[in-house]
């Protein structure tokens, strides 16, 4: 009986804890009215990144990272895998939109002067994310061509490891830093 009561109490505590988190962060949270639609560019960059991650995970199941099989495996995805052409095209086109969003987000921050103290580290982490995104595109573009054409001296398996693990891990780290600082110092208002 005691164990049962303890279990119920714990469940209630967990529920109220979750409820508190949701209420504090979402339902009871108040923000300034001045937030504009253009302020969503950072969020859109994150959505674009998530689309790239989801489509990238799908492609990982079918892509073969070897100099000989890379191009045939992409052709296989495009022609034989159900909806493979669509996901592969989204993964190929997505970076153009993502980089466009990131650049417009950075230009807005730059011209509005929001990078100033105490938000210098927002800018630093954001610009590192832009550089990493460009690296991500570069390594990804080399994966879709065979190494025989001489565009890259690095073995395709190394490029693949950097593209699917190395850069995303670094990006995750910088994103965590970026969001943590945004939570602490807010978006644009003076402290």
């Amino acid at each position, binding site marked *: 009986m005691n164990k049962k009561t303890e279990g119920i109490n714990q469940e209630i505590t967990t529920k109220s804890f979750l409820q508190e988190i949701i209420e504090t962060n979402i339902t009871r949270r108040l923000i300034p009215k001045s937030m504009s639609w253009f302020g969503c560019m950072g969020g859109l960059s994150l959505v674009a990144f998530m689309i790239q991650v989801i489509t990238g995970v799908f492609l990982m199941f079918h892509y073969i990272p070897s100099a000989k099989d890379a191009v045939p495996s992409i052709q296989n995805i495009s022609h034989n895998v159900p909806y493979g052409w669509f996901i592969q095209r989204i993964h190929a086109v997505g970076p153009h939109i993502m980089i466009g969003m990131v650049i417009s987000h950075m230009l807005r921050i730059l011209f509005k002067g929001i990078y100033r103290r105490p938000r210098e580290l927002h800018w630093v982490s954001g610009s590192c994310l832009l550089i990493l995104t460009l690296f991500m595109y570069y390594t990804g573009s080399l994966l879709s061509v065979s190494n025989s054409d001489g565009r890259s001296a690095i073995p395709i398996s190394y490029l693949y490891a950097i593209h699917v693990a190395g850069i995303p891990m670094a990006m995750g780290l910088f994103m965590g830093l970026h969001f943590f600082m945004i*939570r602490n110092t807010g978006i644009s208002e003076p402290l």
Partner: protein
Amino acid sequence: MKDYTKGRSPEMLEPFFPNEMFRHIIVSCFLVILEFVAVIFFPLPFQFVDKPAHIPWFFLPLYNLKKLIHNEVLFISVLALCALFLVSWPFLVRVRSYCLLFLNKIKITNSCTDCYSKVNYPLWQKPVPFAVVIIAIFLVINLCLINV
């Protein structure tokens, strides 16, 4: 977490849910539609600038710069310097002299650094950094358009 209610009347605030969330959902839907449309129409049948097909628009300045600078070490050094300049921008414009430009516009309370932390100035109100940014953007656009 940053508390936006401090120093603001209730009229100056709005609820995060549903207002801000609704805004984000709308723009996210717009993004997804944009990607679907891009899948259909990309690559475009025409080219705005004369460039190889495998070079995307955002690498065009680097591609032309690479053609201008033949020395690889110098090219990588220039890229590293540009990246360093971009990353350290907030620290480069945080010098005391810029503060003097706004003496007649704001009340300085304690120190010069205060005027930076308390007030957000748009870039166009700071002549030197604004000129640097405009020149940088102009150079990047020029690098995109030149035919080396």
